[in-house]
């Protein structure tokens, strides 16, 4: 029982990170039709900026993590907004070129991070209370799992409230359904594009911070490895759906953990791919297709 609880909470923690990356990807594709392969690079840059800032401020690990995370999120948001303004906007509706640009940007940013900070993993500033464990029904669960789940829940609630109660949220929800009709109502949808990119970059950078806490270190390949599962989550959840993305992230995180432990180590990834195939066969549009909510 204790093992099952540990696996479940760990799977939810992993799912929380997938959700943070996938929510931005999902909204960006749903609204703009852009498959952003550079999204993982936002995560990597956010994580590295957090680590680098943490090493340059005084105080304990908690302060370092907090200040570093704020810097990481800010850089993630600005980088994503600049990418949209400078690289994506001129290629509006030229999907092949957009894919090529985002793939190229992902490679370039990865190489830049390696050139500046090297290939080796860097230890992340993690406060001791996050490394400690809390015992629940005999399962000793690392506290960072609760942080990851809590942050993802807060982001889910904030995003849902933003989409439901703000004018920009309304524009994004409508734009996911029919972008041309939004412009035909006199709305400059390009501002929403930049905003969605910035939001996605912030969430990805946040995932970078949490992945640093989860793994205790940051390395140049982190964004790429998590991005693959984030894409799977987006496809299963349905492009443009925040709710669908959250559900899919939880399912993928849990299945990975259960399959790795109960079947065989390494089978978790295969189980996720099988799930993807099943969903595509049964519901090609994903669990909640093409509606931002």
């Amino acid at each position, binding site marked *: 029982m204790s093992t099952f609880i540990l696996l479940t909470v760990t799977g939810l923690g992993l799912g929380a990170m997938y959700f943070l990356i996938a929510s931005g990807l999902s909204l960006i594709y749903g609204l703009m039709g852009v498959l952003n392969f550079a999204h993982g690079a936002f995560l990597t840059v956010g994580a590295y900026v957090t680590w680098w800032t943490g090493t340059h401020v005084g105080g304990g690990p908690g302060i370092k993590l907090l200040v570093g995370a704020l810097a990481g999120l800010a850089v993630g948001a600005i980088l994503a907004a600049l990418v949209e303004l400078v690289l994506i906007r001129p290629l509006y509706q030229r999907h092949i070129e957009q894919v090529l640009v985002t793939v190229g940007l992902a490679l370039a940013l990865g190489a830049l991070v390696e050139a500046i900070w090297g290939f080796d993993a860097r230890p992340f500033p993690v406060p001791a209370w996050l490394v400690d464990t809390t015992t629940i029904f005999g399962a000793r669960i690392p506290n960072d799992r609760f942080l990851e789940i809590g942050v993802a829940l807060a982001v889910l609630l904030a995003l849902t409230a933003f989409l439901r109660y703000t*004018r920009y949220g*309304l*524009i994004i*929800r*409508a734009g996911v*359904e*029919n972008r*041309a*009709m*939004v*412009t*035909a*109502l*006199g*709305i*400059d*949808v390009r501002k929403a594009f930049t905003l969605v990119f910035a939001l996605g970059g912030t969430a990805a950078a946040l995932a970078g911070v949490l992945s640093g806490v989860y793994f205790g270190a940051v390395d140049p390949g982190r964004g790429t490895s998590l991005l693959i599962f984030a894409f799977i989550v987006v496809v299963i959840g349905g492009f443009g759906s925040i709710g669908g993305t959250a559900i899919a992230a939880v399912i993928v995180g849990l299945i990975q953990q259960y399959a790795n432990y109960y079947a065989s180590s390494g089978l978790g990834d295969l189980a996720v791919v099988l799930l993807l195939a099943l969903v595509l066969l049964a519901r090609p549009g994903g669990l909640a297709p093409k*509606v*931002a*909510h």
Partner: protein
Amino acid sequence: MALIEVRDLNVHLGESHVLQGVSFEVPEGGVTALLGRNGVGKTTTLRALMGLVPRRGTVTLAGADLTREPTHMIVRRGVGYVPEDRDVFAGLTVDENLRLAERNGSPRYELVYELFPELKTRGGQRAGTLSGGQQQMVGIARALLNENSVLLVDEPTKGLAPLLVTEVAAALERAAELSTVLLVEQNLAVVARVAQQVVVLDGGRVVHAGGAKELLGDPERVRALLGVHGGQVRSDR
């Protein structure tokens, strides 16, 4: 004086040269109907005026060139658009569909609810669950919510029950009291009721322009230009 002037409008969609030098004028006030057989380019003409498809040629509104304006700027100049097939946002409620269309601080909800009282009672309902007629009301209401000098309305009665056709025609008449209307419509009874001018397209070109009564009162010309059989067209009241 013409409110809208269209000169040598050309649109290519893929390999197809859909509009081949379309030129016409829409006088200020009343309803001008854009008529023609299926596939002659009526909807494409409206989409080209809205900047929703790549086009060549010149479009002016009260002398201002719209040709290089993006769609949202054309709308902000006072052009409302009711697209074919409604294009309501299915996942949004009726209220949200209307709120999204607000462009200034004084949206005309009183007018909208006077014309379509049903929309007030169904404000919280998702637009995707409305009937076709109710969705059309949302589409027209979005365009009427703001003060526009021109409304471009694309087949508003398509697929509607006769009673709803009458209701939509009444809404068009009211809209024409407030704005100039350029209407694409297949139902000639509705055209006879609301339109004063007609422009007929065929093969991507304008083949006739003139008074609505003159054309619709001449069955031979209607048959020749529109391929519609039958006697004199009576207005649908």
